[in-house]
Each structure stands twice: as C-alpha cells, then as structure tokens.
C-alpha cells in the first residue's frame, strides 16, 4: 500500500497479511485438487483443509465438526437464521445483515443505551415462550461498543431452565456476529456462552468471502445451499481450500498478537481522540468509554457534513468511513446513530475511524494534524 496514504477504515476491510497470502498461495494452482477426489494428491489437500479447520476450531475452543465454512459473515448470519420460524430478538443497532434477516421473521427489536450497549435485562423482558433466537453482535461495527454477551447468555440459560420446568420444548439459541472484535477480544465459544458464532476472515487480515458459522452440537440447522453435501450437508459446494488455509493462518496470527496489538491500537486511538477532542470542544465521541474495541473511534463534529469530510480527507490521502450522509438526504442516516439517540446534527457530522495493522504512531500523528487543519478549514467555510 502507498505509504503516503493513511488507511483508517480497518473495520470495513483489512489488507491480507503477507504471511496469510503465502500460506494460501499453493492452493490456487499447484495444489488445486478437489478435496473430495479419490487420488492421493487430492486426499492430501483434503487433509490440509481439515487441519486448517482443526486449527480454527482450536483457536475458538470448538470442535472441528461444529464449524461450517461459508463465503463470509453475511452468509453465516443468514444460515444461523435459516431454520428459525418462531420469535426472535435483535438489538436495534445490529448490522444490516442481521436486521434484514430479522425482518423476515417475527422479531422484537430491543433498544440500546447511548453507548450502543445492549442490556441483558431488556433481552430478558423481550423473551417469550416461543422465542427461538437471540442475535447480538460481539461488538458494534460503527461504535466499537463491546456487548455483554456473557450476561445475555446467563439470561438465556435461565430461560432454558424455565422451559424445562414448564415442559416447553421450543429451543432457544444465542447467536453472535463476531465479525468485529476477533483479534482484539478472546473468542472462546464456551466462555462467551453462545450457541452459534459468526466469524469473518476478511476483517482479520485474511481473505474476503471466507467466513464461518460455529454451531454448537445441540443446535438444529438446515442448509440454505444444497448440493454435494460438503460441510456436513449444511453448506454444499467445493471446499475453498486456499480461503480456509488463509482464514486459519490469519486467525492464528491475530491471536498471537492479540494482547500487544489491542494495547498498541488503544494507545494510538486514545492519542488521536485526545488531540481531536482537545482541539474541537464541541466534538462528541460515541461508543462505550471503557467497553470499546481498541481501534475504534467514532467522532462527531456538529455543523460539519461527515460525508463531505470523508471526501476532504480522501483528497489528503486519509481514508475514513461515515455512516451518515448530509442532512438533506433523509433516510440515509445511520440506524446505529439513531438507535443511540444521537442528534441529527451530530449524526450528520460523524466519521468512523478504525485503526489496525496499517496504523503507526507516525501516521496517526500525521492524520491528527491533517484532520485538525481540514476540520478547522471546514468550520470556517460553514460559518462564513
């Protein structure tokens, strides 16, 4: 990547780690065999595939047989929702892939607090005797707020007890979309207390269009893609060997450096947040002050158009995201910002900065200086 460019949108996409690329490379051309073929070179590829899945499973405290490889998090989420026909519960600030799955079902949307955090009590209150699924992201993609999955898992556990007592045979599952947060948070399915977990290689310096759904053995699932019966018949299609090898290597790498990298990113993020907040006293940082992903900084500059700011920064070589467009296009405001009750003015003036591997003390310092210069200029233009 051009070193003059400063990439601050790691929550959207991450560059493939060179070591991941190297691990994947043999399986595109030299070792191209179909893992289902009978001859030895193909069987060898099957073994590579299985051991890559094994490695992924061991990283999250799961069994290899519980992992369904998919073409990314969106497919995993759709799969998690595929067999549900009863009531479900989702928080209002979830990603669109969850909300759009929920739309097709009898769904209760629970509100989040001003930090975007879900309350286990709200979930508890929303549970009905026919509730089948509760889906809560590990961390919010816009704000970085980390959700109290363990508390919610306790609520669900209690509900299971109640159902046993009442002889209510309706199963209740807890799914979490962990697209954001892998590599910063310890992902152990047992400790998280979930029944299904979605993960995405493309957000952890692995390949895009590779994801997984971890499914606890007691969960009933039905396929949305049928065919040759791969992935235990839940997700047919020739195995993406290179993709899964890349996924396992990427997961291994982010986990190896998890503690170091989280602390490094938090420090850089805090330094950027500090200079921006100190310079612009009206700036508002959203997301939980403590329970927030290390690389996430969601910040609003009232009176500024966030989308315009994205393009201004783009011209200076800085890439950031905005969930919101200008005030005049109604309906395009981020539902997450609406969910946390952010005013229209703050929503419209917000950008999302997400740090990652490409962030260094030097480029974060430079990004801060450029942002201050451009935001000051923009305030001057707006107030002329």
């Amino acid at each position: 990547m051009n070193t003059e460019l400063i990439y601050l949108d790691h929550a959207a996409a991450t560059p493939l780690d060179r070591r991941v690329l190297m691990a994947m490379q043999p399986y595109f051309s030299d070792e191209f065999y179909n893992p289902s073929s009978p001859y030895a070179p193909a069987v060898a590829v099957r073994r590579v595939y299985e051991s890559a899945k094994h490695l992924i499973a061991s990283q999250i405290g799961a069994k290899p047989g519980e992992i369904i490889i998919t073409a990314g998090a969106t497919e995993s989420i759709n799969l998690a929702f595929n067999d549900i026909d009863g009531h479900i519960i989702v928080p209002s600030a979830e990603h669109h892939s969850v909300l759009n799955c929920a739309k097709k079902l009898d769904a209760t949307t629970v509100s989040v607090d001003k930090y975007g955090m879900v309350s286990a009590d709200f979930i508890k209150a929303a549970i009905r005797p026919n509730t089948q699924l509760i889906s809560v992201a590990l961390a919010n993609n816009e704000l970085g707020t980390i959700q109290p999955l363990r508390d919610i898992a306790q609520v669900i556990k209690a509900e299971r007890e109640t159902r046993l007592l009442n002889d209510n045979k309706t199963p209740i599952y807890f799914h979490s979309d962990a697209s954001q947060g892998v590599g910063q948070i310890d992902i152990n399915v047992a400790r998280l207390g979930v029944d299904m977990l979605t993960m995405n290689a493309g957000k952890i310096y692995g390949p895009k269009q590779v994801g997984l759904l971890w499914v606890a053995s007691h969960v009933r699932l039905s396929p949305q893609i049928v065919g040759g019966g791969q992935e235990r018949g839940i997700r047919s299609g020739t195995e993406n060997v290179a993709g899964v090898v890349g996924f396992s290597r990427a997961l291994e790498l982010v986990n190896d450096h998890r503690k170091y990298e989280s602390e490094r990113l938090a420090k850089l993020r805090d330094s950027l947040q500090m200079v921006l907040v100190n310079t612009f006293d009206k700036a508002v940082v959203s997301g939980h002050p403590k329970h927030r992903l290390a690389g996430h900084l969601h910040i609003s500059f009232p009176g500024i158009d966030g989308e315009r700011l994205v393009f201004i920064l783009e011209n200076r070589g800085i890439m950031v995201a905005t969930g919101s467009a200008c005030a005049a296009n109604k309906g395009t405001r981020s539902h997450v910002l609406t969910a946390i009750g952010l005013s229209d003015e703050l929503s419209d003036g917000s950008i999302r900065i997400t740090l990652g591997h490409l962030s260094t003390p030097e480029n974060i310092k430079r990004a801060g200086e450029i942002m201050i210069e451009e935001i000051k200029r923009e305030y001057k233009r707006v107030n002329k």
Partner: protein
Amino acid sequence: MALKTKVYVGMSGGVDSSLTAALLVEQGYDVTGVYMKNWTADLPGVRCPWADDLADAKRVAVKLGIDFKVFDFENEYRQKVVDYMIDEYKAGHTPNPDIMCNQEVKFKLFLDAALEDGADMIATGHYARTCHIKPVGCNNKADVNCHSITNVESATISSTNTCVGELLQAVDKNKDQTYFLYRVTGKALGKTLFPIGEFTKPTVRKMAAERGLWTATKKDSQGICFVGQIGIREFLGMYVNSKSGNVVDKISGKVLGHHDGAIFYTLGQRHGLELGGGLPYYVVGKDMAKNEVYVTTDLNDDTLWKKSIKLTNLHWINEMPINNCYQIRVRHRAQLINANLQLDKDIAYLELETPERAIAVGQSVVIYDGDVCVGGGIISI
C-alpha cells in the same frame, strides 16, 4: 466591486455536470453544487442506486471547494414524471420522461428552489447553449449576438436580471440535447447557463481529466434514470397489469403469435416479438382496447413512414413562430429535416420534405430555426 453572480449547478455525479461546475468556478462565478434527489423505484434488498451518484457529485464539489446541497424533489418527480410516463404507456402512447423532467423538475422546481435559496442563476451539464437577450421593450436590442457567441454572461451580476434566453443547439451535434429541452421557457433559459454546450464530449472528458475530476472517466448514464437497473419492461410490470394478447399480421389479419402486453410495444419496434425465423417483423400499430399488436414484414408500410404530422400540446420557448420553413427532429439525435409549418390555433401541422420512420403518438417533435430551438409539440392522431 461587483458582487459575484451566484450560480447553482445541478450536479448529477456525472462528468458533464462535474465539468460544468468546474468551468463556472474558473469563470469566477460563486458556485454551489446541488444534487437533485428524484424518485427511484425502491427495490427490496437492492443497494440504494442514487447514493453513489450523490457521493460522486459531492466528491467533485469538495474537490472544487464549493458548497453542496441536496434538493429533495422525490414527491414532485414521482407525480410529474413517473406517473406521467406510466399513464402514457397505459394509454398506448410512447412518452418521453426526460422532456418532462426538464420541463417540470430541472427548469421549474430546481430553478425556483435555487432562486428562493439565493441563487442568481442555475446551470446544468446539458449539451445545449443559451444566449440571453433583454426583452423587447426594455432595450429592444439583444446584448449579444446570439448566433455567433454564447455564454457571454459575465461572472458579475449585470444590471438586468429580467432577460430571456434562447435555446441553441450544442456545438457537438452528435450529443446535442436540445430535443429534451424544447419545453423549457425562455424565461427559465434567461437564468440558465450551459457551459459545456461549447464543447464536444471527448473534449469534456479530456477537460475533466485535466482538472483531476473524479468523474472524468465515469460511464455515461443510459436510459431513464429512475428505471435504473431493471429495464423499462420490468419497471412497467411493477405498475401495470399487463395481459397477454395476439400479435396480428396487419395485412393478412392472421394471428402470428402472442405478446405479454400491448403496453410494452412501440411503433417501429423490431425486437422482442419472438415470431420465429424468416423476415423480421415490425410493429405498425396496436389496439389497446383489444390488447392486439399489429406487425408487418413490409419495411415500406405506410404506417411506418409519415410525411405529415399533427402536433398538439404546443410549446414555444419564446415567441410563436411566424414563418413556415423550419427544421424538425422527431427523436433525440435524429437528423434535422426541412418541414413546412402551418399553425391553426393550438394545433401545428407539419409537412416533411422527406418521410420519417416510426412516428409514434406521444412522442415529441422539436422545431428548429437553424441553430435555434423554437419549441415543438406532441404527436397526436
């Protein structure tokens, strides 16, 4: 020091309107970019189609350092342009929503909203030219020679803002968009600038690239914007209950096959009839009540070629034409052909020098006097 003329530029996110804004900035105008949010079909599960265009327009505005606004005309556009188009198709006509969009939205709603917001003038990226004349009685003399140079409007406010405008063909005769602009008023044109009408499309792209405009290589938009990705057939299918009916040979009266709704067929159309091999069939008529489409293999069929046209719903950009010899165009980019014009109150009769193919009811005929677009009307029976 004179105050800079404030121009609101309709920016669609394409190369033409991007360069329009850039040129006006260079010419010293006080420029504001405006994205007109028009109506689009909301297709479930489909990524919002206009957001990318809006972002492109805004990106260019940021590059130029100009203010940028969004005007929301969704409801008005739906009523004036989309409903009109659907109704015309239902009536068996061949409507032109682009003409309606210019008449009702760009040069009425947008102009009014821009003036209301403090603009002195508007500009768009149309391939056309205007020249501004002080009205007769005020000075009785055009302040410019309209037929040689245009866009002499200075970037500072002139003493008069009551001038009217003439509509002239673009320099690029291949791209000229005056056909779509004939229902705009002279008064609106008096407050309008078309800076890129002076250039050819390749030059426009080159100039945009030279200025580092992001949209320099962006693909031209095709077809009707609000129909977007789905195509007119699918679009109409969402609003009209079409029934299958007979495709009838005009000469023999024999039923040749079936169609999926007469509404989808227009005069002169060749494709989509699926009548098997042999000579191609052309649509020569339809009966909406019977839901029948009439076809022929005879390319010289007299319904396909017409020399006389009757126009109603006339519109004149400035004064009514007083002569008889004009040039006309029956569709966008068609060759200009000589025609004799006879006016009878609200009806115009045109006698063409050479016959024109596939003149369908509902289509517009636009009348020119050399480079000047005089106005036109809508073909009726």
